[in-house]
Structure formats: structure tokens, C-alpha cells
């Protein structure tokens, strides 16, 4: 029989083999990826949570320090040398401050250890008195046993903060190493890093992304510098004002008020609670107590912050709705504890500002277009 060999149409045997191999590898690697997906997401989550905080702090610090570095750079020093000089300056000022305050610092720390329970005791004492008077007027409340409950709460809160302290001390130690390191590279190569990221965008969108990255980073720099400067000045005012009274820990209270001032709406209130409480416990309802209240509320918050600092330093654009502030604080606290509470709000502000800047950019370029349309007319 003479059968013509079947016309090979389509694939040769080699190609089929190749396709088979490729498909098998694809399925196998897909399965492997799928099975390890949970560990992969875990891995990335851990990496993110470990790196997030130092990266964010370094980011903020580099925005804060870059004007100083640029200023020194203008005198002809190289960028790396300028950064080293800035670091040297910071370390120098830090050592001077430490030497100036360290003897007091240790005494202060031990005092604080003694005084905190004392203040807590006195406060619960006052609360007890108040409760007793309430009980006299409303005997039916007695069944709730508020007295022991308040005692229990204060003990719980104190022990919880104490239990968490070593962990956060370790974290802070890690941050002390990582943040200066990251900040150094951000300061030195920040522009190159940003350019490298921007250059990844496809040609068609490159111009817009490039323009936006510039606008957003300029806006961010302004916002971060404004916020930190504001917190610093408020802290300074509180410290100076409290130094006039006989209150102890004026410096600590000032620092606390400055840091909490980074959080809008709630921060200032939280910041003034310890100072006013201490003044109340130590001085009673005397002149010094009222001076403390006036200092915190009227001078630091209303006069300095609201009338001078916020209009000068911070644009209204970055204002957040109070509800959004609460969300940011709650989520930040849930994710990263106390530091998360402080940085949650600035992060949300940054996101909001980015969105606004993008919208403004688009509007800037849409306006002339609509004007042209009007001109062309029907």
C-alpha cells in the first residue's frame, strides 16, 4: 500500500514536547506559588511592618533636614559632607542638651517613678471624695460599686503601660539605629530614588506623573516642616510657661504637649491633661493652677497655635474632618500602638493632600480647555 505520509499541519513533535514542558512547569510553579502564597503574604506583611516605621520616620526627618543640608551645600561643600555636618551638628547639640540636663534627668526619672503612683493615688482619692458625695445624694448608684472599679482601671492601665515599656524600648533602640541610616540615604539620594521610581512609568503618562511627583513632594515638604515646627513651638511655649510655676517636670510636660500637638483636635486636650492634673494635685485650685490652665488653653492653643502658627505654617488644605481624625487615631493605635496614634493623622493628611494635588493639577489643565470650547462655540 502506498499511503502518502499524513500532511503535518500545525505543530511538530518537538513543539508539542516544548509546549507540554512549558505547561507542566507553569502548572507546577503555579501550584507551588499557590501553596506558599500564605507564607508569602505573611513574609511581605512582616517585612512591611518592620520597615514601615523606620522608613516613615526617616522620610519625615529627611524632609525636615533637607533645607539645612541644602543651605550648607550652597557654601560649596559636597552633599555627603553637608549631611555629615548636619549629623554632627545634631549630635553636638544633643550632647550639650544631654550634659545640661542629664544630672537632672536621672533624678527626674526616679522622681517620676515615685510621683506617678502618688499622683494616681491622690487623683483616685479625689475621685473617691467626689463619689462619696454623689453616693450621699444618689444612694441607688452604690450598687454599681464604682469605687473599686476606678481603682481597678487605674491599676490595669498602669500595669499595661509598664508591661509594654521594655518592648517599645527595644523597638526604639532599633529605630535609633535605622532611622539615621535611612535618613542619610534619603537625604543623599532622595532625588535619584524618586527619579528612578518616576522613570518606571510608561512613556504616555510619564510627563504627568513626573509633574505630579514634583508638586506633591513640594507640598509634602511644606506640610511636614510646618507641622513639626508648630509642635516644637507649642512645646517650647508650654515648657517656658510652666517653668514660671513651681510645677515639676516642666520640660517633660512641654515635650509631651509638643508631641501630642501633632494630632489635631484630640492631641492638645490629651497634651494638657497631665499638666493640669499635676497642677491641681500639687497646688489645689489656686493661682498657679489657673495660670497652668490659661497657659495650656489660652496661650499655647488659642493664641500661639490657632492665631499665629496654623495660619502662618499650615495651609487649610490639609485640614481633616474630625471624624477622619478619629478613624486615623484608632486605626493607627491598633496597628502601631502609641506611635501609630501620633503618625496616623499625618499619614491620612498626606494621602488627602496627594489626592487634592492630583485633582488640582487636572483642573488646572481642564480650565483652559473648557474656555477653548466656549471660544470655539457651536
Amino acid at each position: 500500500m502506498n499511503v502518502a505520509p499524513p500532511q503535518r499541519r500545525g505543530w511538530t513533535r518537538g513543539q508539542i514536547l516544548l509546549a507540554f514542558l512549558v505547561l507542566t512547569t507553569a502548572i507546577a510553579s503555579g501550584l507551588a506559588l499557590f501553596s506558599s502564597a500564605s507564607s508569602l503574604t505573611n513574609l511581605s506583611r512582616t517585612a512591611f511592618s518592620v520597615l514601615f516605621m523606620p522608613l516613615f520616620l526617616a522620610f519625615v526627618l529627611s524632609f525636615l533636614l533637607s533645607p539645612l543640608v541644602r543651605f550648607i551645600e550652597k557654601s560649596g561643600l559636597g552633599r555627603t559632607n553637608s549631611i555629615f555636618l548636619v549629623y554632627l551638628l545634631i549630635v553636638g547639640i544633643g550632647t550639650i542638651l544631654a550634659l545640661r540636663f542629664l544630672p537632672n534627668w536621672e533624678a527626674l526619672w526616679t522622681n517620676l517613678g515615685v510621683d506617678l503612683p502618688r499622683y494616681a493615688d491622690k487623683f483616685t482619692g479625689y475621685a473617691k471624695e467626689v463619689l462619696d458625695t454623689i453616693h450621699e445624694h444618689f444612694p441607688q448608684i452604690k450598687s454599681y460599686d464604682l469605687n473599686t472599679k476606678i481603682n481597678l482601671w487605674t491599676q490595669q492601665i498602669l500595669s499595661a503601660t509598664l508591661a509594654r515599656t521594655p518592648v517599645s524600648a527595644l523597638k526604639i533602640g532599633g529605630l535609633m539605629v535605622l532611622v539615621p541610616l535611612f535618613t542619610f540615604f534619603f537625604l543623599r539620594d532622595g532625588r535619584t530614588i524618586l527619579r528612578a521610581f518616576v522613570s518606571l512609568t510608561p512613556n504616555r503618562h510619564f510627563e504627568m506623573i513626573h509633574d505630579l511627583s514634583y508638586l506633591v513632594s513640594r507640598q509634602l515638604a511644606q506640610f511636614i516642616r510646618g507641622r513639626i515646627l508648630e509642635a516644637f513651638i507649642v512645646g517650647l511655649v508650654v515648657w517656658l510657661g510652666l517653668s514660671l510655676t513651681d510645677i515639676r517636670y516642666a520640660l517633660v510636660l512641654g515635650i509631651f504637649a509638643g508631641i501630642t500637638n501633632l494630632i489635631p483636635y484630640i492631641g492638645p486636650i490629651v497634651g494638657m491633661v497631665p499638666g493640669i492634673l499635676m497642677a491641681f494635685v500639687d497646688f489645689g485650685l489656686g493661682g498657679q493652677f489657673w495660670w497652668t490652665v490659661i497657659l495650656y488653653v489660652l496661650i499655647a492653643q488659642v493664641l500661639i497655635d490657632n492665631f499665629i502658627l496654623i495660619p502662618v505654617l499650615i495651609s487649610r488644605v490639609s485640614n481633616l474632618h474630625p471624624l477622619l481624625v478619629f478613624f486615623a487615631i484608632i486605626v493607627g493605635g491598633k496597628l502601631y500602638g502609641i506611635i501609630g496614634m501620633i503618625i496616623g493623622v499625618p499619614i491620612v493628611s498626606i494621602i488627602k493632600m496627594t489626592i487634592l494635588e492630583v485633582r488640582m493639577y487636572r483642573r488646572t489643565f481642564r480650565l483652559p480647555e473648557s474656555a477653548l470650547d466656549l471660544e470655539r462655540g457651536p
Partner: protein
Amino acid sequence: MDPIWSNIFRKTPEQDSLAYFLSNLPLFSELSAKEISLLENLVHLRNYRAHEIIFEDGDPGSGMYMIRSGSIQIFSRTPQGEEEDLARLGPGDFFGETTLTAPVQRSASARTLEATELVGLFRSDLQEAAEENPRAASHILFGLTRVVSERLQAASIEIRRLQRMLGEDAAPETIET
């Protein structure tokens, strides 16, 4: 010649560098070596495939492009959707310079004709440079202004010439100058 050796003599690395390309452009011919190296860090190198749109009429414009290799076509679209060829540019030419200093829309579209390497210089980079290094930035801007005003002058001479040509044909009262 041996192919292994011929490669070496084709181009010196210096001539291949971006700095060499920039310093040979008429725009930047008067810049010092230091300013060229600053400019080198300011510009963006972008690679385009053939027939790729660089920008469209009406896009937000943020800077100019110089052609390092390849060629591009500037065109505009008529209301009927037809393309009208305005110009074809090759290596060493530049385009889009009108949007470098003012945030305006692109007034025409640009497309590559072959695989093309463009060097982009954008407003935001120039603004940053002006803050950090005003001296060099002003030199760069001077070079740009010189070339742009040359173009403007050539254009106005051309307009006058066209007007004169039109004047010979049209009635004299329709011409105003």
C-alpha cells in the same frame, strides 16, 4: 577589518555620552562643563518604540524634548479627524519648548517614526534647579531663550512675508498691520 576591532573604533565613549550630546546642541552650546554635568542630572532619557505617541494635542504640557536618535513627526488633527503633517524632526532637533516655562496645553501632537531616544527637560526639574543652583539654571534658560527668540523672529519675518504676499493679491483695505 577584524569585526572584533572595528567595534572599538566606531565611537569613543566620550562621544557616546549624554554630556557630549547636550554640549553639542545649539541650545546649550555656551554652557560650561560643570553646567553640562548639572544638566545631565536634570534631564530624563526616554526610549520610544516606532509609531509611539509622545504627546497629544491638549495634553498638559510640562517640558521639551530633544531628539538623541531616531525621528519624530509633529502633526495636528483637523476637526474631521484627519491628520495634518506639520513637521518632521531628526537627531539634534528639539520640540515642545513652549510649555517649558508656562503650564499650558500641547498645541500639536507628536509621534515617533522609528525607534527613538528622546531627552526630556521638564519645568519642575528646571524650577528645582533654579532654586538650588540659580547661576547654572539662568545659563540654561538664557540658551533656551536665545533659541526660542530666534525662532520667534524667524516666524515673525515669515508672517510679514506672507502678509506681503497676501497684500499683493487681496484688496488693500483688508490688510492691517
